[in-house]
């Protein structure tokens, strides 16, 4: 166990390429039991994106391949996670089966170019909605609000409940990061340890050199996914990072359609089921209250 | 010198001060010392001569184990030379050595060169060591150089300082490894004079040299070496006037003709 931990950590700082990172997340999260329903008699106005996609019977979706719980490529070469399930729900409403979705890996830096160049039809990839991005792409959703959260040792020995505990514990984050700034600004007396990377914080937490790691819950989720025996997520985000579905700028019909689908999924429980089968299973947290979509 | 302990008892019985018995040494394939046996009595002055490469310097360096030997026994005052370590260091302190290239400690003054051993090895006080050191520098004729560093002295002065450094340890025997070979001709005699006076005072000496004048004047015995072997041992008078071996005759003819 020791050795594996060690190689994983080395990999995290880039010394070992391929060792130790194959994640257990796939096994834990699995694919949802309930297959997403596929609309069999979908009818759309001619000329809309929806009509084109429904007729083609396929959709190209950009998602992350390296974010456990949200979008992580499986050994079978298909991505798994909450973002992936959301994309399946939307595809289903277009009459496209999950097997007919074409997945394209999109990292943070190429999401906008993919949409602008038409290489993907939509992006579901832990994509935070903000005003700068709205200049070049449009967002449906949000379908999820991520936020700064806290990861502690499994069992939460110090009974950490939220940021108010920062005054009494050793908390770890990354130098120059927004989450670190949040702690510095709101809890100036906190015993804050700053590393270059979150993976180092996770190691320090494992070694009892710090008591907690704080950053976006999505990042923390991946650590819990990799080592659920060591880590536990508090699961109470205290900042807001709304995740939206990116569509090409100006395609208001498609955006509105996706918003309808999302709202329906909030209502009929498929959204919560998607959560429970993916990120929720990894972090052992119940589905949060669905956000309200922003039809700007 | 204290008069108890087995060492001194052995000396009393007339045992040689330095004894080499069946010594063999190789540098790789080169057999540099071949079956050397040699006894040196207390107070005796031995001059070792021979062509370069004959092993005479190596022989000299083996006596205080600056070189180790593969076979044979070397005893100093009856004691077998120990392996590298504290015991060997203690034994070396009783053997003075003068090198061809002086080897004065470059970062220390002449006086510090002479007092280092007495203070660090003999445990003498600084004042005591300095008093004795100045006496010795006086004796070798460089008392006015005491506070200079070696590089400020001439070669002859440096070598005399090196002799004083060795004497400061009150050695039982002094080894001289070609002490004048690195000197300009005009400085050779100042060093040889010091050595002659040491010999007169009864110091046991092993001198590797090409100075035949010194050998005639001061040696009790001349040892002639060639190709790692002792070829001939004789009094200087006999050796220089009637060498027995052809190799000694050949060697002498080469160095004495010009």
């Amino acid at each position, binding site marked *: 166990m020791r050795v594996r931990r060690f190689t994983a950590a080395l990999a995290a700082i880039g010394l070992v390429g391929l060792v130790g990172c194959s994640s257990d997340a796939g096994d834990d999260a699995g694919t949802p039991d309930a297959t997403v329903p596929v609309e069999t008699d979908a009818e759309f106005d001619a000329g809309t994106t929806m009509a084109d996609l429904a007729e083609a019977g396929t959709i190209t979706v950009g998602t992350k391949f390296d974010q456990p719980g949200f979008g992580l490529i499986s050994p079978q070469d298909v991505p798994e996670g909450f973002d992936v399930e959301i994309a399946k729900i939307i595809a289903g409403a277009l009459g496209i089966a999950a097997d007919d979705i074409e997945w394209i890996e999109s990292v943070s830096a190429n999401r906008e170019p993919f949409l602008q160049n038409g290489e993907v039809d939509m992006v579901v990839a832990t994509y935070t909605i903000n005003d700068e991005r709205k200049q070049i792409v449009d967002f449906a959703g949000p379908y999820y609000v991520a936020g700064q959260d806290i990861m502690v040792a499994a069992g939460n020995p110090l009974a950490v409940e939220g940021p108010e505990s920062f005054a009494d514990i050793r908390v770890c984050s990354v130098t120059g990061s927004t989450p670190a700034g949040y702690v510095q600004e709101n809890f100036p007396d906190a015993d804050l340890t700053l590393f270059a990377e979150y993976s180092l914080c996770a190691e320090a937490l494992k070694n009892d050199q710090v008591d907690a790691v704080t950053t976006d819950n999505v990042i923390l989720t991946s650590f819990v996914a990799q080592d659920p025996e060591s880590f536990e997520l508090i699961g109470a985000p205290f900042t807001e990072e709304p995740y939206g579905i990116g569509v090409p700028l100006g395609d208001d019909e498609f955006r509105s359609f996706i918003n309808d689908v999302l709202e329906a999924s909030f209502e009929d429980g498929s959204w919560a089921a998607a959560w429970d089968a993916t990120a929720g299973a990894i972090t052992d947290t119940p589905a949060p209250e669905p956000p309200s979509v922003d039809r700007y | 010198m204290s008069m108890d302990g087995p060492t001194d008892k052995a000396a009393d019985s007339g045992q040689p001060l330095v004894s080499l018995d069946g010594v063999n040494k190789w540098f790789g394939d080169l057999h540099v010392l071949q079956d050397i046996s040699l006894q040196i009595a207390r107070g005796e002055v031995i001059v070792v001569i021979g062509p370069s490469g004959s092993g005479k310097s190596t022989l000299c360096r083996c006596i205080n184990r600056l070189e180790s030997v593969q076979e044979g026994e070397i005893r100093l005052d009856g004691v077998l030379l120990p392996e590298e370590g504290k015991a060997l260091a203690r034994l*070396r302190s009783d053997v003075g050595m003068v090198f061809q290239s002086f080897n004065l*400690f*470059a970062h220390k003054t002449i006086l510090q060169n002479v007092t280092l051993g007495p203070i660090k090895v003999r445990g003498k006080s600084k004042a005591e060591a300095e008093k004795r050191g100045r006496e010795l520098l006086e004796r070798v004729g460089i008392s006015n150089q005491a506070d200079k560093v070696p590089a*400020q002295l001439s070669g002859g002065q440096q070598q005399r300082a090196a002799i004083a450094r060795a004497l400061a340890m009150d050695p039982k025997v002094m080894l001289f490894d070609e002490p004048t070979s690195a000197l300009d001709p005009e400085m050779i005699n100042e060093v040889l004079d010091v050595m002659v006076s040491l010999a007169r005072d009864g110091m046991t000496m092993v001198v590797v040299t090409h100075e035949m004048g010194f050998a005639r004047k001061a040696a009790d015995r001349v040892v002639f070496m060639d190709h790692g072997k002792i070829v001939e041992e004789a009094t200087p008078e006999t050796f220089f006037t009637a060498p027995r071996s052809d190799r000694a005759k050949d060697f002498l003819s080469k160095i004495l003709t010009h």
Partner: protein
Amino acid sequence: MQAVLDNFAALWSGFLTTLAMSVSAAVIATIVGTLLAAFRVSPIPPLRAFGALYVQLVRNTPLTAVFFLVIFGLPSVDLTFQSFFVAAVVALSVYTSAFVCEVVRSGVNSVSAGQAEAARAIGLTFGQSLREVVLPQAFRTVVPPLGNIWIALVKNTAIAGGGFAVADLAQLAPDLARDNPAQVLGIFAGIALAYMVITVPSGIAVGIIERRTAILR
């Protein structure tokens, strides 16, 4: 430059941490490195082998990896430094001592063999001849390269702050840059200046030591 002035207290504290880390590691690395050099020239084969192995292992390992091993590797053998500052000093000392060892060893080799022979011939032990005769001369020749190592060490401390949880100058830089995005250049210039406050006088001091300890040969 306004951000630098506004955060002077934080910069001062980071500066002191960087200085403390540099000085502690320099002292330890110089002592340990010299000991290792003594190992490498000693007559005892296992010590020589240990010295050589240490240098080969440490000198060929990235400093970041040394930090990683000290902070996260040692706890797996139940050796945990609760203070990241101490861990950083250990990592920097471990790393720098390998370089000190090689510089001192080359210095030892620059002292003629005759010096050591003469020292042994008057009865000094191996340790005494190193201490009294060889190392003092070796150090004088290695002052300039040692100075380079010390200055490199000061800059290497930035790895501790930038990556490994020590609140020094380097750790401050990204935080200040985040809070003052318009003044990033000024902030980094200010931090660089603070490093120079340590390194430039060190270089001058090394020059003075070098002149004072020069020996005639």
